[in-house]
């Protein structure tokens, strides 16, 4: 088992790649257990191990950097507070943490949407494009390449639906409207796309 070493700031390349790639979830599990007992050092290590993943995902969905910081902070505090409730039988620690962060990001954009504050240009002009080119990427290029290859194995329509839903934070109803397909088609593409990705990436649970 490899325990991640705390780095000066976020994004120590080796640590992030090792732990955040999900190849050694036991290190994250151990850190979460320590967090549950109030170990602030463990939480700092956990932050260093996953902050690039977590913040990057939130930023991708929310897009506004200031709001993304707020949402990421909320997610991290939720993780700290609920660390005792993480159940390894139900999934990997990374998936648990990113699920929390994603949900908070989606809640943020949907409430902002209700207030008509959302920039929705992505959906109408960029739907078949790849991920944001402007996003500054940290290490972990191998993981990224692997995921890009898996994404390339999807049909364009599956990929569009998965990207709009997960990275765009749109509901399947909105995805259907954005892609101009019937409602049932959008949800099927999201599911089929995810299943294909799962099988290509060899994700196990």
């Amino acid at each position, binding site marked *: 088992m490899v325990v991640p070493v705390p780095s000066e700031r976020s994004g120590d390349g080796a640590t992030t790649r090792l732990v955040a790639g999900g190849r050694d979830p036991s290190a994250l599990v151990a850190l979460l257990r320590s967090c549950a007992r109030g170990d602030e050092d463990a939480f700092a290590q956990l932050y260093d191990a996953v902050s690039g993943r977590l913040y990057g995902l939130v930023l991708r969905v929310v897009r506004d950097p200031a709001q993304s910081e707020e949402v990421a902070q909320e997610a991290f505090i939720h993780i700290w507070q609920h660390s005792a409730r993480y159940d390894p039988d139900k999934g990997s620690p990374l*998936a648990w943490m990113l699920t929390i962060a994603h949900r908070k990001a989606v809640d943020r954009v949907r409430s902002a949407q209700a207030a008509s504050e959302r920039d929705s240009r992505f959906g109408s002009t960029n739907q078949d494009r790849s991920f944001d080119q402007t996003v500054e990427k940290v*290490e972990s290029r191998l993981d990224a390449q692997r995921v890009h290859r898996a*994404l390339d194995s999807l049909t364009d329509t599956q990929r569009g639906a998965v990207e709009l839903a997960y990275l765009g934070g749109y509901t399947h109803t909105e995805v259907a409207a954005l892609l101009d397909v019937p409602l049932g088609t959008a949800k099927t593409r999201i599911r089929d796309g995810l299943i294909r990705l799962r099988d290509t990436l060899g*994700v196990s*649970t």
Partner: protein
Amino acid sequence: MTADIHSLSGAYAVDALDDAERADFERHLEACAECRAEVASLRETAAELGAVTQTAPPPSLRSAVLAEARTVRPLPPVTRTVVPLRRRPAAWVAGLAAAALLVVGGLVWSPWQHETGPGTRVVAQRVLDATDAQRITGSVSGSSATVVRSPSLGRAVLVADHLPTPSAGKEYQLWLDFPGRGMVSAGLVPVGSGTHLTYLLTGDAAKATAAGITLEPEGGSKAPTTEPLALFAF
């Protein structure tokens, strides 16, 4: 909807359902091990996608997060929240599960109809004035609420002051617990009903063993989807 509810697993795993759909699907999940496993595997998959969006956060975030964590106490490893009530009817939990199963089982749900009009107020007043009126007080999100039930009139009324406004997309829903039937909707509390609320519950309160209040997605649910904010055992 029920026929192809399994196909919502992907959209659920990536938070692409609206509140009502999510509540429906979560009820389905309780009964469908296959969907639970699929959702777990698709969430793992979605987490992998994070590899291409990785971005180092600004250094200020680290200090802000660690500083805030210092002021937040980690919760103990308990899953059940404490319900502010003197007596907690065990029937609630059984009722909750039973209600969920009934819906999952595909039985047709007849939506409740809340009575409106001047007659409602008269009936509510009669319940409050009834000689056999029974008053059970509890706390809903920090504010006091009382359920008044008259077995002879067979009705119950919720009286509350300063009930906190539910967050966007949520509504308070009332329930009556019937032996053998579980939780049955007793109506949605109208939003913006002012600081003082007197609400006549739908349903035969004489046969009910408890009343409860939950927060549900707007439009209400067929069965409680959240832990009750308060329970009132008769």
